[in-house]
């Protein structure tokens, strides 16, 4: 790790260095990768991907968003989310990746972040807005600022370029931040408090230099005068998007924030956190995923599970714009031993392929969740791409016993005769079709479901049923739109009142097919305990607010 010692020692007599308080030497850690593991750590891969504990470095590098609305102008957030670019130069490999948010998604997130306006419980001076731009510019260049920051081409761009501050930051926040950076940095003391001294135990500031307020006002006046060239355009676009999407709420934004695990990297409010699994286990990736595929994928990620690793969450694998060298290092870390595939699967005949395709279309539940050839659910990966992506041993064990192959997967084990399973595996292993649809689903047009992993009936319903049947049983889960048959409306009291509890149980237990309904509804009998299924039946009864037929209830009479 490279440590750059910066001695902030200005020259002139009016300089900040004249201040009575000692000028702190501070360290700027320029992180460089020394081992492949550093790539993983600095990119924050493990913040989302399970499999190992992370030395979470990113949280100290990414901006604290728990007061984002206090800090940033919304149009800046809106634009940045769609076009994340490097802002900070001192955070090494860490970077804000691109989540491929469209305007509406960015708007939702912006609304959420902008709602975070809590003012710090610190007594700041009452700054006036009448600072002098020219004096401010002088301050910037003469004082320590320019040692680390650049503005209008002047200064050292060690930390970041401030040339767009006027279109980025909220003025109040900026003045307060210059006065006491430590108040905003949660102990991650990077920017020195040069003008005021801030004691983290206290809520008040002690002036370090003379005319500190005036200097702050001038500096901020200067910085605020620096607008991005396209600021007006950005503001227009934001206003326009907001106007034409009045239905998009802070709440949608909050769910997106949670689902994308933004709090994995950014300091966040508790309401923006969601602690459940958002991405696949990384350290076992070598036994699951083909190396060459992974290298291509992390270079240019696309949707594997179009609406979230945790079904219905909408989580995405963002694009880190990795360089070829970065990709190689990451792959070198992930593939630390040679995996020999045990399975040798003979290519099936055309006849078997056609047979399996028919079964996928008409009998197997697979395409309730998976898609193939553009048809089928969007919960799980496209079946066409599996053979390129997955190691055939893993593919085989996933088809055979999903929960062993991938602990925690939603995919239930589907019972079938061995000969059919073998043919299905052979079909999948030898399906080299290209996946045509690689886009994530809109986080606005599809309801996001974020259950907790606690195994209550409601959570089981939310994590396994709601993605099709809807959170409230209205058959409007995100995946419903992608199924040939509409899911049963568990909220439909008149329909559900005709169904005995045992029928509901059996449908969950053995799948829709046995009830002469859709084969796309899988049998959960191998994945849920009978008590859990019984819990689901009771939960469905609460959704329909109805009773089963009288004959089916335990009302036996002795007369």
């Amino acid at each position, binding site marked *: 790790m490279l440590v750059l010692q910066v001695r902030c020692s200005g020259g002139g007599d009016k300089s900040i260095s004249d201040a009575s308080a000692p000028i702190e030497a501070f360290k700027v850690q320029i992180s460089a990768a020394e081992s492949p593991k550093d790539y993983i750590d600095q990119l924050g891969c493990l913040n989302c991907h399970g499999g190992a504990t992370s030395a979470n470095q990113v949280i100290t590098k990414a901006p604290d968003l728990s007061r984002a609305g206090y800090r940033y102008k919304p149009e800046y957030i809106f634009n940045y989310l769609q076009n994340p670019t490097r802002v900070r130069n001192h955070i090494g490999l860490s970077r804000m990746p691109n989540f491929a948010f469209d305007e509406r998604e960015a708007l939702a997130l912006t609304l959420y972040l902008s709602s975070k306006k809590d003012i710090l419980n610190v007594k700041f001076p009452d700054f006036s807005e009448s600072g002098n731009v020219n004096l401010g510019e002088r301050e910037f260049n003469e004082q320590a600022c320019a040692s680390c920051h650049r503005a209008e081409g002047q200064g050292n761009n060690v930390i970041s370029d401030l040339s767009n501050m006027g279109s980025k930051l909220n003025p109040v926040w900026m003045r307060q931040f210059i006065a006491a950076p430590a108040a905003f940095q949660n102990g991650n003391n990077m920017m020195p408090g040069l003008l005021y001294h801030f004691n983290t135990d206290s809520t008040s500031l002690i002036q370090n230099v003379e005319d500190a307020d005036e200097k702050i006002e001038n500096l901020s006046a200067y910085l605020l005068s620096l607008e991005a060239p396209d600021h007006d355009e950005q503001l227009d676009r934001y206003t326009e998007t907001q106007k034409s999407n009045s239905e998009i709420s802070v709440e949608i934004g909050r769910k997106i924030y949670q689902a994308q695990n933004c709090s994995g990297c950014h300091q966040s409010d508790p309401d923006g956190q969601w602690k459940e699994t958002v991405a696949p286990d990384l350290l076992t990736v070598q036994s699951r995923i083909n190396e060459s595929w992974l290298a291509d994928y992390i270079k240019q990620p696309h949707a594997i599970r179009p609406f979230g690793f945790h079904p219905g969450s909408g989580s995405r694998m963002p694009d880190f714009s990795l360089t070829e060298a970065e990709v190689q290092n990451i792959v070198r870390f992930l593939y630390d031993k040679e995996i020999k595939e045990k399975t040798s699967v003979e290519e099936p*005949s055309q006849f078997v392929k056609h047979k399996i395709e*028919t079964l996928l279309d008409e009998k197997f539940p697979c395409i309730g969740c998976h898609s193939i050839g553009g048809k089928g659910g969007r919960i799980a990966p496209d079946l066409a791409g599996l053979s390129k992506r997955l190691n055939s041993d893993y593919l085989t064990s996933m088809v055979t016993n999903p929960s062993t192959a991938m602990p925690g997967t939603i995919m239930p084990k589907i019972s079938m005769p061995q000969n059919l399973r073998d043919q299905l595996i052979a079909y999948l292993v030898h399906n080299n079709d290209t996946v045509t649809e690689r886009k994530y689903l809109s986080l606005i047009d599809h309801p996001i479901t974020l259950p907790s992993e606690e195994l209550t009936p409601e959570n089981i319903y939310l994590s396994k049923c709601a993605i099709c049947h809807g959170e409230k049983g209205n058959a409007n889960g995100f995946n419903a739109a992608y199924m040939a048959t509409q899911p049963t409306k568990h909220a439909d009291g008149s329909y559900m009142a005709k169904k005995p509890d045992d029928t509901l149980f059996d449908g969950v*237990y053995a799948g829709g097919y046995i*009830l*002469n309904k859709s084969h796309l509804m899988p049998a959960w009998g191998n994945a849920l305990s*009978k008590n859990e299924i019984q819990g689901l039946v009771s939960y469905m009864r609460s959704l329909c607010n109805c009773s089963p037929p009288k*004959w*089916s209830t335990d*009302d*036996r009479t002795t007369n």
Partner: protein
Amino acid sequence: MSRRKKHKIKTKDSSQDRSALNETPPTSKKKWPLQQVGLYAALALAGIFAIFKLVNNGGGESGKAEVSYRKPFPAVPAKMLDNVSFEDFVGAEACSSCHTDIYNKWKSSTHGQAGGSPKDMKVIGKFDGVPRRFKDAVLTPYRAPNGDYMFNLKTEGLPEQTFKVDGVVGGGHMIAGGTQTYFSYFPDGTMRMLPFDFIRDEQVWFGETSGDGWVPITPDRIIDKESEWLPSRVLGTHFEKSNCQGCHGSQIQLEYALDKKIFSTQFTTLAVNCESCHGPGREHLQIVSEPDWKGKASLGFNSLVTLDKDESLATCFRCHALKNSLEPGFLPGKEMEEYYSTKLTMFGPSDENPYHPDGRIQEFGYQINHLSSDCYINGSMTCVSCHEPHGQTYVDVNGLPLKDPFDDGQCTSCHGSKTMDISQHTFHAIGSEGSKCVNCHMPYLQQQAIGEHLRFARSDHTIPIPRPAFDTSIGIETACVQCHSDKSVEFLQSKVDEWYGEIKPHNNMVERLLEFDPSMSLFEAGEVLLPDSSNHQMAQMAGISQFAFNYLKPNMNLDAQTVDKIKNYISNVNIDIQSVAMASLHMTNGNDDQIHNMLVDKLAELNETERRKVMKRWASALPMMAKKFEEKGNYKEAIEVYQKSLEVIPHNTVVLINMGNAYASMNENTMAIQILDKAIKLDANNYDAWLNKGNVLFKLQRTPEALAAYKQANSINPWNGSAYFNIGNCHYRTNNTDEAIVWYKKAVEIEPNLALGYFFLARSFIKKQDYKNAFTAVRSGLALDPTDEAGNQMFADLRTYFRSN
């Protein structure tokens, strides 16, 4: 094997016409069934003829403004070429080299062991040389020195007969009644069932009696009362009991060669082989012999595991169903609906419905009553949901193997709910017999057609809920009784009430059938039997059948409301229901131009295949109704209905012959002859047409013409005793006694149990004063039919004569 003897539409029993010979009272006699072969040839041609019919009808006289315009019926669309022939089948051995596992599974399965030559089969019958005595005959099953399995039969007054076993059917595998039956080649080229069966559990020889079911051979039984004696079950016949003769074997083909006057019987095996379900294998063998077969989209077969629910069931219902023949010539690989209807078996009066109102079989257990189970109606259950098709072992709904037919996994792989707390559902100790799903829900029911002498029970595939009081009320042994035989129905019902309280009601359509009472008015009956919709097609078919057979008459002009109710059924998803609804409206209101045109329009909406299937069923359903009018002596109505059938499919010889006979029964003999001539014109080689024409001519005393007709029939099929007998009658009437004797002798030679033949032979000898031969003949006749009045009189007269001389 079916022992079902319910009504079928066929031509009049034409074995002999006694009406002109008042000397003997009419007795009922069985007939040899072979004259049916070839009757359907005209059906295939009907489409062509119908084109002319259209022109004649003036249907095309467009431009003429007519007040009432009746659209012509469309022609029956010509059948698609289904190029399956006997040569396309390769036999199971051809499959064994690639599909070895499956072949081995099959080989030891009940299908694989369903039949074969005596050399290949395990013969369970005791061919021990021990005589089994009837009252009037002695049967000795024995092994010939060369190892052949043989039967020797000595019948009083008749020459001794021996039969060699050429085919064995049934392995005696089945739980609750396994039997084996033996087939023998006959001189006419047919292979016939010998009505001496063996049952595994009781270890006895038995036969089927008329009225008393299956009865072991005992000295109080008269062999001529055996319903299958003479051997009349011909392998490969399609129109009756085809589930026996058509299904106990693979790809059985029976053809009659007119030039050689002989039948040819072909089959791949008497077992049920791969191709019985998968269809012909020749193309498959050709394709897979090519090196690049793996890249071929078609391997000459369809995968049966991909079939949908009803298609999958239909594969098994080729055999495991009661069915009516629509056309001969079915082979696996052809579409069954073109050849057979399963639900037309229910089209008849309720006392002839082979199913109880709740779908349980009345007579002989075919598993098609699974269609009445809730597992089918509200579920996805097919045969292969529980039965592994290759080994006939048991599997759960996911195809995973189970131990045996009593394994709960058959049910609980769907009904997981019932395993939450098993004893809460069963009220029997876990692990006890009463705790096994199938013991209560699929009990082995003694098949009613078998009677009570031998145990032959089959598992109830309607998968009912035991309802002791209800079950007993419709004559079914309720499941509880299987263990609790000492308990009264009242007790059992009270236990059910106590344990379960209110139980699941019957399907609404079943409740309607139970509610129906023939004393209801037509309106009431329509409300009950013809609901707007139902998910229970079997019961729906029963409903419309009961309505049709209780209330409908030709041209009765049903009221608009009832018409609407039946019209609703014309769009039913089931083709049988659809067809009988059309037939019913055609019969009642077909003279109304509007209704007629509506029916024609409906036909036009269907695609060609559907239209052909509907028209075949429609034209078959009408004669089934006509037959009932005829049975009640309502010949005029019967003729009207036959006429309507001919409107739909004009050139149908079966219908024409029936119609001709109905005219003859009304003594409208000129019309009768005219109609029979029409049939002859369509099919000059139709045995029945010539025979029935002969009967009418004989009745009209036009004896030389009658003789010519009978001779024509005889030249078509010299294996049928009827023509011989009737030719004898002509000669007898014209005092050509020597000639009469020759023909009567041939008649009894061909048909050795034709008692009338012997009596008339005796009468001819008497006429010639050859009393010795007369006495021999009359004794033979009386051995067959000891109650015949005229025979007994002759016997008494002759005895007196011999005593006094």
